[in-house]
């Protein structure tokens, strides 16, 4: 198990360095000059040159990279060229909003998707199964922003159950949860549909295995077979998808954040890219990537917990 954890940790660090490097060079590859952007269209060439040298933009790219990496190791990702605030701090302050949305969305997805998928598999071929799968197919087919608009229209505008906009940034815990519910539902529903379909096929595959027949032949009650013996096996592929969808949820959070006018990583990064705010974009990429990589590392550890075959070297 120690070797397994060690491998996971090494992978984690290597992945982060790789992602930050790619993000650094990609940003430099996009046309546009932050100095020009900051000083406006009527700046003199001297002023632009002075600012470029102050920001270190006059150095060759590989030197910029070395300077960036050296500072990054000490946790200094520079300051936002637009607001002058430390870039990392700005991103980290946006993180909780996105994280809570992604986690809540994923929770909705798992809480709805897994039981529906199991039910569908147990009742395979019946009207229960067909209804669930039809609804799931619809859930996958509709784009998130459309579901978001429909949800706002019915649940918020007509029924008045949830606020349509904002995140209650200054509000108390329950007010914020109240504001989070609708975006989380919207984000979670399409993932729930996906997870339901996946759970169903994973369960069906497991239920056809010899060891399930053995359990039946030994008189193990069906609930124990479904929810313990079969589910732990079926959960291995489900876990993989939860990992992938978490990254997806963080990414799609941008759309949901825009629809619901919520603060978050997505909207902050979007603004930064448009302003060629290199430092802020890099900080955003680093924070997002760290989040995704950490989730994957956690999942890797969970695989090891669920599947003993993963642990043995």
């Amino acid at each position, binding site marked *: 198990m120690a070797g397994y954890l060690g491998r996971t940790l090494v992978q984690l660090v290597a992945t982060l360095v790789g992602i930050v490097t790619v993000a650094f060079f990609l940003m430099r590859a996009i046309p546009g000059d932050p100095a020009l952007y900051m000083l406006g269209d009527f700046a003199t060439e001297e002023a632009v040159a002075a600012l470029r040298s102050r920001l270190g933009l006059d150095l060759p790219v590989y030197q910029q990279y070395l300077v960036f990496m050296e500072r990054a190791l000490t946790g200094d990702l520079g300051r936002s060229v637009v607001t002058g605030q430390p870039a990392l701090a700005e991103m980290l302050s946006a993180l909780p909003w996105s994280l809570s949305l992604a986690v809540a969305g994923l929770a909705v997805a798992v809480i709805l998707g897994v039981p529906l998928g199991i039910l569908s598999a147990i009742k395979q071929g019946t009207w229960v199964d067909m209804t669930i799968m039809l609804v799931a197919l619809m859930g996958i087919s509709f784009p998130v922003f459309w579901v978001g608009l429909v949800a706002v229209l019915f649940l918020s505008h007509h029924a008045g159950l949830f606020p349509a906009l904002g995140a209650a940034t200054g509000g108390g815990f329950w007010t914020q949860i109240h504001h989070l519910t609708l975006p989380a539902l919207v984000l979670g529903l399409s993932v729930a549909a996906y997870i339901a379909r996946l759970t169903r096929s994973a369960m069906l595959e497991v239920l056809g*295995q*010899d*060891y399930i*027949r053995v359990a039946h*032949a030994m*008189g193990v*009650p*069906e609930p124990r077979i479904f929810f*313990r*013996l079969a589910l732990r096996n079926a959960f291995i592929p489900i876990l993989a998808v939860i990992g992938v969808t978490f990254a997806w949820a963080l990414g799609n959070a941008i759309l949901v954040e825009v629809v619901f006018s919520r603060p978050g990583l997505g909207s902050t990064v979007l603004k930064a890219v448009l302003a060629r705010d290199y430092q802020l974009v890099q900080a955003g990429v680093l924070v997002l990537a760290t989040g995704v990589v950490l989730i994957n590392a956690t999942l890797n550890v969970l695989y090891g917990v669920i599947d003993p075959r993963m642990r043995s070297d």
Partner: protein
Amino acid sequence: MQRSSPPSSDPSAAKAGPRGPVLELRDLVTRFPGDDGPLSIVDGVSLSVASGETLAVVGESGSGKTMTFLSAIGLIPPPGRVTSGQVLLEGTDLLTHTPEQLRAVRGERISMVFQDPLTGLNPVFTIGEQIVEVLRAHRKLSRAEARKKAIELLERVQIPDPGRRVDDYPHQLSGGMRQRVLIAMAISLDPSVLIADEPTTALDVTVQAQVLELLAELREESGMAMVLITHDLGLVARHADRVAVMYAGRVVEQGSAKAVFEQTAHPYTLSLFRGVPSLDTDTAQDLIEIEGQPPDPAFLPPGCAFEPRCFLGQGRASCQATRPGLQPTLGTEHQTACLHSAELTATRARA
């Protein structure tokens, strides 16, 4: 002081006395839907096995051996269905049981070991957890008690160092060890009947003998009845008291192992024997495989199902016209479903 007369439960007396069947199948029919109406995969099978006895059920793959016993314990895969007959376990008909009653019987009074030990154990639970699952499905035991019982069971199936092995996962065990674990699960509640479905087919030859020996010992110790489903006639000769030969969903010959071996009364059985290489075979002539394939249940011949492959009846009008039922031969409990079995006996007499 004189000892009083022994109580009636003296085990040796019970063993010696006449034993009724523990498990008796009567006219069992299992059907699967086919394109042109239902197909009888199990077609009127009657069999019985007494406690302490091993019944070998023999036949090529597809002859309905496994389906017969899956039907008996209510595990026929859908859309298959048992349509008629009786499955008497110690006198009560399992086919009248509710699914929950049937579940309670499985593992407790009638148990089954399957062919492939590599896929028979759940990969994400320790073998101890899996045995405990079976024990706790039938008995109110604490976790600690169940675990202790699991270790005892592993010891009983001769797994070395059971106290440590109990926490192993299946992938840490060899095929032979895994089959022992599955046997431990199957006998964990002292069933009256153990059905072993090709228990050694997937194992190495050296391990096969050990596993069979273990099964024989366990049967001896517990006095349970054993059904050994196999296509290996070598096993039958060594382990079976009685033999039932199946072809196309029917029993075509049954009787004591001695009678079936020495006075084979069905040409199909004789063909199976000829497929077995043996040391005292003088000529290669005796090693003929049975030509052709077992019949597709959707296209059974109207007469005897074996007629198209039979060295005795191929092309004979009588065989093509009537499907023979099981008849006693020479007034014994040895039965055969062949119109011309007398000719087989005659051939042997001349030889």
